[in-house]
């Protein structure tokens, strides 16, 4: 039986006795025995309302060093500052989210961010004798603006430094626009909206993926073609 049909059957089984009871003048008392665990849940059951964790909880920082995180905080604030009613990247907790996203990413992406943040800090110290985290906006602009490029989808710049600056800018902006804080604030003029889309759950996922050839251990009868 398909899972969908199975659920329907269980819901029907749960509903049927109630309907019969409703037509009875003197309903029988409830069963003294424990209620079977599948009974009760049905389409009318109210669903608990849940919150997005970012709104109420503090994320543990696991990936960037404290210096890299401070650089990323300043970079995020410079690239995506608050504008009108919309929060900036810092208020949207984008740096903490990127610590999670980048830290979970393949090695080339992790290294690009680590090297890029280290390079920004070194540039700030070389040119202004302070860490990037302490730069004024105009000082940060002198480092960042020369590397800003225009580019088309799937083709970010590949030139050293321009790659990091432009990809980080896109990530910081997307993570901010896609945050609940941004979504909750009213937009003005051409400010982007937080995307709302059809999210696909895993569709009958393969729960045996980790044991791919378990059936091959069963000996095959003679006469069958081997494979």
């Amino acid at each position, binding site marked *: 039986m398909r899972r*969908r049909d199975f659920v329907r059957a269980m819901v029907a089984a749960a509903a049927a006795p109630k309907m019969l009871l409703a037509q009875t003048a003197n309903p029988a008392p409830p069963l003294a025995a424990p209620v079977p665990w599948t009974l009760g849940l049905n389409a009318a059951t109210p669903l608990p309302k849940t919150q*997005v964790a*970012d709104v109420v909880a503090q994320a543990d920082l696991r990936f960037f060093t404290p210096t890299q995180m401070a650089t990323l905080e300043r970079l995020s604030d*410079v*690239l*995506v*500052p608050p*504008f009108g009613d919309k929060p900036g990247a810092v208020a949207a907790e984008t740096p903490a989210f990127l610590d999670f*996203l980048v830290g*979970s*990413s*393949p090695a080339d*992406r992790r290294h690009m961010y680590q090297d890029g943040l280290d390079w920004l800090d070194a540039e700030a110290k070389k040119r202004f004798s302070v860490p990037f985290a302490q730069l004024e906006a105009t000082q940060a602009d002198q480092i*960042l603006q020369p590397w*800003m*490029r*225009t*580019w*088309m*989808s*799937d*083709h*970010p710049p590949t030139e050293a430094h321009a790659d990091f600056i*432009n990809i980080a*800018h*896109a*990530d910081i*902006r*997307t*993570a901010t626009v*896609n*945050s*609940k804080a*941004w*979504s909750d604030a009213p937009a003005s*003029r*051409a*400010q*982007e909206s*937080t*995307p*709302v*889309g*059809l*999210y*696909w*759950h*895993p*569709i*009958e*996922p393969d*729960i*045996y*993926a980790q044991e*791919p*050839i378990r*059936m*091959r251990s069963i000996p095959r009868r003679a006469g069958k*073609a081997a*494979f």
Partner: protein
Amino acid sequence: MTKEPVDILIIGSGHAGGMAAKILTEKGISCLMLNAGPVVDVARDAKQEPAYALPFRGFKPPGRLAHVFQSNEFNANVWVDEEEVPYTFDPANPYNWVRVRLFGGRSLFWSRQSFRLSDYEFKAKSRDGFGEDWPINLADLAPYYSRAEEIFQVSGSTDGIPQYPDGNFIPDDIPWSSSMLRFQEAGKRVGIPVCRGRRAHGRDGLASSVNLLLPDAFATGKLEALENVVVRELTTDKQTGLANGAHFVDRLTRREMSVKARVVVLAAGTLESTRLLMNSKIANSSGVLGHYLMDQIYGVGVTCSVPEARGGKATAELMGGAGVVPRFRNITTKSDKFLRGYALNVTSHIGSLEPRNFAAYGAELQKKLDLYYGSAFYMTIMGEVLGRYENHVRINKDVVDAWGIPALHIETKYTDNEHNMARDAVDTCVAVAESSGFEVLSKNTEPNPPGYSIHEVGTCRMGNDPKHSVLNKWNQSHDIKNLFVVDGSGFTSAGWQNPTLTILALSMRASEYLAEQMRQKNV
């Protein structure tokens, strides 16, 4: 218990398999369809969500689907997972194999552009000497194109351009916006036609095998289907060499099973069909199985702004609408830089422009986004990739998928022909845009990796000569007369056109031929 063989075993449920099932069952022939993935039910499997409610705020889940540029967190679970069904390639020449194994396959998700090939594609070798001609021409396929256009409710206009054959269209007579008209006028000055696109509207918002083809097949009572069965190999009769069924594994339980059939119709999608033939070690007396892998170059283009639409002055009269520039190179003149040609999708857009179109950030960027809102004009390429013997796939015995089935190794790369075409496209777009008075904001001459267009074709090509082709002009194996391959793998050349309509027409034509051959007891 031994089961009776089914009349026809159809492997795959997308446009190719769906059309075969519809045609064959309507002729009264019993079919069994096998599909590697589950039936998808949008009410059960999907729901509307804001990006902030997803674990990765809408970003593609890290480390997954590295070669599916089309994926994001919303749709990540509809694509084939690259770890579950791996494939290999030389890191210097990456390949984007974009797959869907849900029931209905990639027919559930496609751009709906529905073009006929012309004799500039079917008989390309006769014109420029490269490759091979198809064993059929437009006149052979035209009646089937017409019927497929009817089923898929394709809209378009009659243009009378030989390289952009007209069809059985729902008339598209929406007025052009004035930005499109300006581009059209500028194109005319340099001999570039700008036409209406051709688009499958389908029914109820969907143009898929699952709603336009399979319901008719099921209604005959002649179609049975299995979900979640991964075909391991096709089987053949040792005496006759004919195909006699398939051996498969249940995707979830790993139970091994087999089915016998009188005829096998392979429609698993270009590279999966070829992989299955290779793993079955059949249908390759020509030695060209797996060779001549083609697709189209995508990702090349130009983004512009229409100055008059800036500053909140975009109106529906000025902006909006889309068109197609059908191939115009190597039609009446000859390029010395490349063979064949490319088409362009042209779109006038009244919404926002992407931030990456401006080398700015912060308040300065927001000022630009506000100013340029509603003024976007996009041009993107669809360019023909030449069929080359060396662009091929083979079985990699060292790598297996989640069911122990050997994986495919894909070895293909673009050549000067494709790169020169890409540069010509961008130069041409920039020239026509500037002649239209548009400002060019960004451009890209580097094609996305091969495969990205999801238009992979070839590797099992059709031809009249059994020594140089895998299939005959009826999509029938030269080697095994009761084996038909009806998906894009049979293409002899790629053209610039989205292949779906041609796959539908070829599958319809092959299936009618098969039904007649069965009636005459030739198969």
